């Protein structure tokens, strides 16, 4: 097995967000690619966001206890939203 790309922790500050928030992790060969992968994976390219990446190995942690943040997909990809699909009421909740 060849060498694995290191793991990075991704922090994002949204358009109207306050602090950067941890959104998840990903693999990338270096910091620059971690940033561009984060754009593709965690923002689906929504603009106006600021991304920080930190190598997971470089994090010193106490006992973490943050709640999972959520991110909206890009606004113009309406088909990612459930309400885009008109399902008749009779069918019930879906």
């Amino acid at each position, binding site marked *: 097995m060849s060498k*694995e790309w290191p793991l990075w922790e991704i922090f994002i500050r949204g358009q109207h967000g306050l602090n950067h928030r941890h959104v998840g992790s*990903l693999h990338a*060969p270096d910091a620059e690619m971690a940033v561009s992968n984060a754009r593709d994976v965690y923002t689906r390219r929504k603009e106006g966001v600021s991304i920080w990446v930190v190598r997971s190995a470089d994090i010193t942690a106490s006992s973490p*206890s943050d709640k*999972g943040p959520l991110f909206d997909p890009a606004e113009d990809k309406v*088909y*990612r939203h*459930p309400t885009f699909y008109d399902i008749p009421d009779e*069918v019930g909740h*879906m």
Partner: protein
Amino acid sequence: MYAQMVKSEGGDAEATPEELAFQARIDRDEKIEPKEWMPEGYRKTLIRQIGQHAHSEIVGQLPEGNWITRAPTLERKAILLAKVQDEAGHGLYLYSAAETLGVSRDELLEKLHSGEMKYSSIFNYPTLTWADMGAVGWLVDGAAIMNQVPLQRTSYGPYSRAMIRICKEESFHQRQGYHIMMKMARGTPEQKEMAQDALNRFWFPSLMMFGPSDKDSVHSEKSMAWKIKINTNDELRQRFVNETVPQAEFLGLTVPDPELAWNEEKQGYDFSEPDWAEFFDVIKGNGPCNRERLATRKDAWDEGAWFRDGLTAHAEKSAKRRAAARHAAE
């Protein structure tokens, strides 16, 4: 489910004080976080379950990916591609959750490729017509959601957070599938025939997704105590049938089960068990697409090695160059 037949590692020995304290935390609905003390059995069972779930997401890209280049309109193509892309993302979130337990993604992939770890049986069935894109979204995602919604409350923090994110993104998947089914069921006679055929082929494999009845399973009891399994397989299966049958009726399609009948007393449907012999056979590798699916994933990985290595090499070289430049400047 996406994680079927996950063997749990709970030992039968007397519980130690640590184990009792750990169980008490879980009973109080506290989340267990990485690096906190946990029984080895809990850690191993989680790696197996999350890993299997992650594998299912990425192998699950293939049956639908199969139709991206044949989607009938530009909009359907975009929707399907976005959905299959989400599955790659969900695989990524889940592998990341597993990685917090001290296993690397590459190790997990090795185990998938060698056949040591499994993925959901459902993805070993072929997608033969466009209606299958509807049936997969409606039934397969429907069944998956049935299981994933309660898992948002699972005891392991990173897993729970991954499930929350996944459930949010996945909410459009089932609806887009049902939307395709509506178009097909109300379309030309040929489209309706395709829709019925898709339901015929995917009904029982979807019921199998919940795994065999867990009445007799000790593993499942331990996993439930640890809250890495929230409901029994049978509960979820029943709930799925109860929700899905009226949806099929609305489409004017027939669920391929002559035994299906409303049971007033239990306020749910009676239905036939899937063919469990077939299920075990598929799990063992004898389903219609097992070999192809695994070979596709393995080839993608092997043929991508030079790409991953090339990027690693560049990253190392430029780090060295930067260090040398810094050194020269000092």
